[in-house]
């Protein structure tokens, strides 16, 4: 190549790279500009300012720990002990946690030398290492305390309410009541509630030890008490998961059964009437576009809340989706097989059964099974919004904003459920499509 040719090639290459650089810069630049717009449209700076990290901490720590409330009603002087402060978690009469002692003066040992004493006459003493002894007296609505003027930020105090937050636990005092929250790791009462004889027993004791409840054998008693646990409601949870999977199953399979014949109507080669074809397709687009959630709302009037409504909503939406996918699969079937069957004098249904179905079944099955898994997720969402299944339990648990351990539990269950359905669908796919017709 001559020198001039070469410099020409070089020049061309320079231009080429200029162009390429421009494109390479342009794409990230467009994305960046869009993201900047989003930062302002979604008000991210404001959000960062407002985001409540305390909530996040509460949530995170609550999800793997539980607290026991020790509450003194300042009017009656009664002291109650309750896990999570719930009636169902209340210690039976005469029982109390081992870290509480004393009769006249009730001493609550929070651990780490943090000690709270409930004294007579609605007085309270709080010992916190490295801080002077705090004494509080409740007088009607008001509180009289020895707290100094400038307080550390873990104490919030007014003359009506004092809140103390320490790593060992939390203490709140108002005129009406004094309450101590002691935190412990773990999901308390997950197996048995306090009123069950099996609470606090080891696994071995229940399995091979002496009969704990004279009326029942240990194993059946334990299973039944666990199943009916009022705090964790294992029975309801199991039903809820069952309902969710049921919605997904009925919806998906029902949709597949409905969509198959309709797909023939929408496929060009099986449905010569253009108008019918177009109408069917628009119907598919419509039911698909409306979305399952809205169908649930529409159907709720007719069928009321419950899993059937959710299943029908999934069914309607997926009839559209399947209809579209199936009719595309039908468009692509191979004519030769149909013709072969036709040439024997087969009746129309037989023609479809042997000429078409064997060809589309693998595609159809794969799609149906894939949707079975993804509909388990949809069913969770539908349940959360219109009632039923594990989704609703989750929304409720989140709305009460205190049972974060339940929230965590449900989230784990949901993930396990979806992954299980994923596995089932993969397994079935292998079994059904891999095997013979």
């Amino acid at each position, binding site marked *: 190549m001559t020198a001039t040719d070469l410099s020409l090639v070089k020049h061309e290459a320079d231009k080429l790279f200029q162009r390429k650089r421009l494109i390479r810069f342009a794409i990230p630049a467009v994305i960046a500009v869009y993201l900047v717009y989003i930062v302002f449209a979604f008000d991210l700076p404001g959000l960062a300012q407002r985001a409540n990290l305390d909530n996040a901490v509460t949530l995170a720590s609550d999800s793997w720990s539980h607290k026991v409330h020790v509450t003194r009603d300042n009017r009656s002087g009664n002291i109650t002990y309750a896990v999570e402060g719930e009636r169902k978690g209340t210690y039976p009469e005469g029982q109390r946690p081992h870290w509480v002692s004393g009769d006249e003066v009730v001493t609550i040992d929070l651990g780490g030398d943090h000690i709270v004493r409930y004294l007579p006459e609605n007085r309270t003493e709080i010992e916190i290492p490295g801080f002077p002894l705090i004494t509080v007296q409740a007088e009607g609505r008001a509180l009289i305390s020895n707290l100094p003027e400038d307080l550390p930020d873990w104490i919030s105090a007014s003359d009506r309410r004092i809140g103390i937050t320490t790593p060992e636990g939390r203490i709140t005092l108002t005129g009406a009541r004094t309450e101590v929250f002691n935190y412990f790791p773990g999901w308390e009462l997950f197996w048995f509630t306090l009123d069950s004889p099996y609470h606090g027993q080891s696994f071995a004791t229940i399995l091979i030890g002496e009969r704990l409840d004279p009326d029942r054998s240990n194993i059946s008693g334990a299973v039944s008490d666990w199943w009916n646990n009022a705090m964790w409601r294992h029975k309801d949870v199991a039903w809820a998961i069952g309902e969710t999977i049921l919605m997904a199953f009925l919806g998906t399979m029902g949709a597949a059964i409905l969509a198959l014949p309709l797909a023939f109507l929408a496929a060009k080669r099986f449905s010569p009437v253009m108008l019918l074809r177009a109408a069917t397709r628009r119907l598919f687009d419509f039911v698909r576009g409306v979305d399952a959630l809205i169908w649930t709302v529409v159907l709720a009037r007719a069928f009321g809340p419950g899993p059937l409504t959710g299943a029908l909503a999934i069914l309607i939406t997926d009839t559209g989706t399947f209809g579209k996918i199936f009719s595309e699969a039908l468009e692509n079937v191979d004519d*030769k097989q149909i013709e072969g069957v036709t*040439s*024997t004098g087969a009746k129309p*249904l037989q023609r479809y059964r042997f000429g078409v179905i*064997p060809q589309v079944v693998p595609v159809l099955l794969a799609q149906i099974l894939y949707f079975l898994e993804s509909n388990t997720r949809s069913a969770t969402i539908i349940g959360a919004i219109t009632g039923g299944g594990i989704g609703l339990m989750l929304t409720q648990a989140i709305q009460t904003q205190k049972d974060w351990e339940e929230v965590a539990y449900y989230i784990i269950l949901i993930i396990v459920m979806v992954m299980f359905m994923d596995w089932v669908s993969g397994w079935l796919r292998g079994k059904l499509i891999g095997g*013979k017709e």
Partner: protein
Amino acid sequence: MLHIDTLTKRFGDKTAVDAANITIDRPSMIGIIGRSGAGKSTLLRMINRLTDATDGTITFDGEEITALRGAAKRDWQSRCAMIFQQFNLVPRMDVVSNVLHGTLNKRSTLATMFNLYPQADIHKAIEILDRLGIAEQAPKRAEALSGGQQQRVAIARALMQDPKIILADEPIASLDPMNAQVVMHSLRTIHEEDGRMVIANLHTLDTARRYCDRVIGMRDGRIVFDGTPAQLTTGVARDIYGAGADFSEAATSTEIETLDRPGIREAEAYV
């Protein structure tokens, strides 16, 4: 028996078959030759009623085939089996099921929906397969078979129909010479032993000459030759194929014996 009268088929302004007249009065083995696009397939498809004729009639034993509708038409199709170049089997189903499709017309729709066939039919299917030498393939999926075996399955399906006529649309065009011979031999045997009429579209002159009692030549939709293999001289063949003087018969041959002839390799490249 079979009487075809000014049968015409037009696709738009293209006339695929142009006023064809054929009369066949006893079960014979007939070869139809002609180059690609001559209308051979269309003719066969009209006989089987896979395609409707534009004009003219087909009559079989006094019954007007072209007028049949619905169940009567399907009944005719069950009496008139068809074999295709691409076998047209259901590849995902096993061989016996494919053969059993030959009985679909006689069985109730409901039973067949669930793949339920009488045991007698199943036994008969396997006997037919045995007759064609592929009984051992019975439980395999059709797609697992070689081309020649698949075509024999298609013939078995045709036999299962117990038809009066077997139509074969280029049955050996997708096969290698070895398999082609086996398939043509089977068709001939069926014709001779069962006395069924066989009409086969053939791409190659020598196959037609060797296996058929009568050869029909088509060109551009019209029937330009109808006679015995002996009457089918090279000159006639040139006419049928519209070829020039350089026309060599070998160019259309797939006979195994010709394989050893010099120049055959190059020749096959044109087929």
